[in-house]
């Protein structure tokens, strides 16, 4: 018997680490990976709540999050490759094309 709250706290830990990595990291690929970490933390919450209320809707939602994450990864990595071609850097501080 594991309290559902433990699963939720674990997901909170993962989400907070994802937020910290998003704010601290300077490499655009690592920032992207921390977004994936945050999505995974939220997925764990959905599965835990689906288990709690014996509903499959939570799991369906995780399925859709996975689909969107896959699409996002494909487009985002293509943008990173295009960016690297023009700027030859992955540092977010040097990528300020849209700065006024």
């Amino acid at each position, binding site marked *: 018997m*594991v309290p*559902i*709250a433990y699963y939720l706290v*674990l997901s909170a830990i993962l989400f907070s680490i994802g937020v910290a990595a998003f704010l601290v990291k300077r490499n655009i690929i690592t920032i992207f990976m921390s977004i994936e970490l945050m999505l*995974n933390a939220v997925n764990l919450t959905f599965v835990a709540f689906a288990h709690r209320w014996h509903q499959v809707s939570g799991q369906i939602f995780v399925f859709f999050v*996975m*689909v969107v994450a896959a*699409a996002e990864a494909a487009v985002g*990595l293509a943008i990173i490759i295009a960016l690297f071609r023009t700027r030859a850097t*992955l540092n977010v501080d040097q990528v300020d094309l849209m700065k006024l």
Partner: protein
Amino acid sequence: MHLVLFFIFGLLCVAGALNLLLQHHPINSALSLIVVMTSLAVLYLLLGAEFLAAAQVIVYSGAIMVLFTFVIMLLNAGVEEHTHGSKAAYIVGFPGAAALFGILAYIFLEQSDRLGSAKLGGYLATTHDLSQVLFRDLLLPFEATSALILVAILGAVALARKEH
């Protein structure tokens, strides 16, 4: 048994996530993220989500992370540089994330009694149950995701194409 498995794979998750934060080379971060996602698949299995555990291994640790490692190797990116901007992020980022964790953990533990607990094998959502909902009630959103994936593929190809 359930508690032991939860703590083993939960600790593995947290260790992998911390490793992602502490490593300076993106390839090391990507490999530790694969550890996180695979242990999350085991946790899904403990929560009775067998389809999602398989999908997690195939889609996340299989497809998405391979894409990440492939791009890191393709771009041959080195160790990330420390810049002036990262100092402010250190000052704001870590306390902010700690505060977020504190609030969330407090709320979840406060409501612990109402949330109940999970038993191993207590509730199992089979692929059959999932497909019943997905293909009958949510057929339109499911079909919409296929359009989304198609647009994403086209976008990726258009963006990554070399311009002459």
